[in-house]
């Protein structure tokens, strides 16, 4: 149960970060990016995010983490999603260097991110049923 909450939190943080990043991009022009207020805001969000993660980790530890079988399942899932992401980024980079290829890199990176999460979740479900 705790493991499921962990994964949900990670998913929410990743999606929120992605949406925030994509949403912020058209709003800011290059001059505004140099604005100290924006830098302060981003720094505050970074510190807030780290503090929230630290607090959540401490809380999860006090409740009791997943046992060794779940840890092994999650390790396998992490390896599979990592391989997927590395392979995807490698293929994307290979295609991107071709002079005639014009790719929507941001969209493809987003899709890769979602694919990585999907592989992770499916892998956990597969191993949980099999093991």
């Amino acid at each position: 149960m705790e493991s499921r909450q962990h994964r949900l939190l990670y998913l929410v943080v990743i999606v929120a970060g992605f949406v925030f990043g994509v949403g912020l991009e058209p709003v800011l022009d290059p001059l505004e990016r140099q604005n100290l207020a924006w830098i302060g805001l981003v720094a505050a969000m970074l510190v807030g995010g780290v503090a929230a993660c630290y607090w959540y980790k401490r809380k999860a530890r006090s409740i009791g983490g997943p046992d060794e079988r779940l840890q092994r399942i999650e390790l396998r899932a992490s390896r599979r999603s990592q391989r997927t992401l590395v392979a995807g980024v490698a293929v994307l980079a290979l295609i991107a260097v071709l002079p005639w290829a014009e790719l929507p890199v941001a969209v493809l990176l987003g899709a890769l991110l979602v694919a990585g999460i999907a592989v992770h979740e499916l892998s956990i479900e597969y191993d949980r049923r099999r093991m």
Partner: protein
Amino acid sequence: MDNSLKVWRAKADVTQAELADAVDVSRQTINATERGRYDPSLELAFELARYFECAIEDIFEYEPSEE
């Protein structure tokens, strides 16, 4: 790796949940181990042996796969 965990548990007359609590893992882990779907860590194997007051080899049997 074969094991006779289910037999030992039946002898001791404890449920999967009680055994899981005693060795600090989930009931699903005990169930998966009994069914041979999960090979426990050395630490868990020692914990189980200590719980049943026997040697690890009494519960677990290692059979190298033939290639």
